[in-house]
């Protein structure tokens, strides 16, 4: 132990290097960047697996639904089935890469690894911690949300400049679902309880969003429910942007996604905050 390293370094007047002069405020970029730098370091260990699954999953969807269903139904409305599914599966990719990390990473870091306890002892508050975590997840979801389009292009989807908007749409949608995941983690008593959410909430959200079949074929009641599904709005917006069909309706879709993201962000902070601070 070289305790002297400290005493000689600090001399007789110890003091923070960064401290006294710095004043800390609310939602500071430095705190957000600090929390996210940890996510980046962890990501450095896992990016291969994440990238692999983000490419393989849409490929399987396109093969299964494209070759399977596509053999029966060549078109949905005026779209080919590849156009329909490749754009729809973007929302699926965003949902899975935001809601699941929101739930599992939060629960594990909070309850099992106590990472959040360690960070909250540093000059980081609950709002910054949760915002940074959600921000990181949604940035990642935005990037990986492009994977189905890239795969789709190999299946014959035509590249379109509007596709450049997709990471942004994925980011906003991912922000909402990451916040949803954090909120679920905050109220779940055990990690097993996530099964309720996965089967009863996420699976229907993902199926009834106009991903694989249009919701216009659903009975009126179910259709009304599908229309409040944020994922439906993500699917519509991604499809319109990627195929160059953006219109005034899309402003409405964007507004729903932004409202969902803001609501879930605040809900995540209030719910997890209540449990992080005794």
């Amino acid at each position, binding site marked *: 132990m070289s305790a002297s390293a400290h*005493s000689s370094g600090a001399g007789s*007047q110890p003091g923070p290097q960064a401290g006294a002069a710095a004043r800390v405020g609310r939602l500071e970029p430095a705190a957000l960047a600090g929390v996210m730098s*940890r996510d980046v370091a*962890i990501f450095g260990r896992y990016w291969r697996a994440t990238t692999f699954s983000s490419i393989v999953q849409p490929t399987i969807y396109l093969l299964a639904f494209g070759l399977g269903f596509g053999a029966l139904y060549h078109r949905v409305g005026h779209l080919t089935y590849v156009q329909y599914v490749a754009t729809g599966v973007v929302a699926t990719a965003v949902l899975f890469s935001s809601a699941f990390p929101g739930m599992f990473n939060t629960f594990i870091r909070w309850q099992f690894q106590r990472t959040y306890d360690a960070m*909250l002892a540093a*000059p980081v508050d609950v709002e910054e911690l949760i915002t940074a975590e959600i921000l990181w997840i949604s940035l990642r979801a935005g990037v990986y949300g492009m994977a189905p389009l890239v795969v789709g292009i190999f299946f014959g989807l035509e590249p379109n400049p509007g596709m450049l908007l997709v990471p942004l749409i994925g980011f906003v949608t991912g922000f909402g679902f990451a916040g949803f995941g954090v909120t679920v983690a905050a109220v779940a008593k055990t990690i097993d309880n996530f099964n309720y959410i996965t089967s009863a909430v996420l699976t229907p959200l993902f199926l009834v969003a106009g991903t694989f079949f249009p919701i216009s074929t659903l009975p009126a009641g179910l259709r009304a429910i599908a229309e409040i599904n944020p994922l439906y709005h993500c699917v519509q917006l991604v499809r319109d942007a990627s195929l160059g069909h953006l219109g005034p309706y899309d402003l409405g879709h964007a507004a729903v996604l932004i409202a969902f993201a803001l609501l879930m962000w605040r809900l995540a902070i209030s719910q997890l905050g209540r449990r992080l*601070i*005794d």
Partner: protein
Amino acid sequence: MDAVSDSEEAERGFEGRLTPRAGAAISLRGVHKRFGEITAVDGLDLEVPSGVCFGLLGPNGAGKSTTMRMLTAQALADTGEISVLGYELPRESKQSRLEMGVVPQLDNLDVELTCRQILTVFARLYRVPRPQRTAAVDRALAIANLSHRADTIVRELSGGMRRRLLVARGLIHRPRLVLLDEPTVGLDPQVRQELWTLIDGLRAGGVTVLMSTHYIEEAERLADTVAVMSAGRIIAQGTPAELVREHAGEEVVEVYGPPDTLARVAALAADSGWSSRRSGPAVAIMRAETLDGGAPQGVRRPANLEDAFVALTGEEIE
């Protein structure tokens, strides 16, 4: 502090508690904290002067960890006032956290990261300016004697190394106050010695240290001042030597024997009004020097902090 009479307070130097002394690193006044039915902290008054190593000694469940968490605003007091480094909690807690370091009782290191990665993340969280970050990380690694393991993943470190890394993480920004919550709990004696050296080095460097512990020896060796905590409040405070003199006297006589002998000695002590306790296979009678030869035959030894602690809290430790 209702349990402590005014005269005792004066003796123990509590008179300053209503007006925080200039330069007090930590001050708690009338702090209560309940968790449902359980009262964890029950009217706590505590003042830690700058530049000392202050030991918070108490049995498990005395409220030490809750007190520590309140000092970082990770637990909020129900009533009472808390200030840390002159900042009022919880309102200015983020500012105070910027200037202090925390070493938690439970290992909360990221097991998937290397020592250097963890220290770099915390250097950012503690706002160490970018040009100084590498040097700060190297310095913290050197303090913890982990320079040769800088790029080892935490999962592969021994328990002692992980604990040293926890300490290094709390010192990355050269804090002027360090909170250590049970710093050596569960460590083998050699690692414990290493950490003691490190903590002593901090104090020598002018850093204020508040350390909670339930190891008597740890408090006795390191702390300039010890506050004994029991049932959520401070029941005595002073230097280790003062506490021993005041609550256990100069000498203790330990009487060994079969259980019925011990029972007889304990009964005799109770009848005679001597302060005594069971100490493993013996009965220990405090203040043997005042018994004027009236004490039973036994082994005489100097009183220690453990005697004082048991006399104060009625609880055995370890």
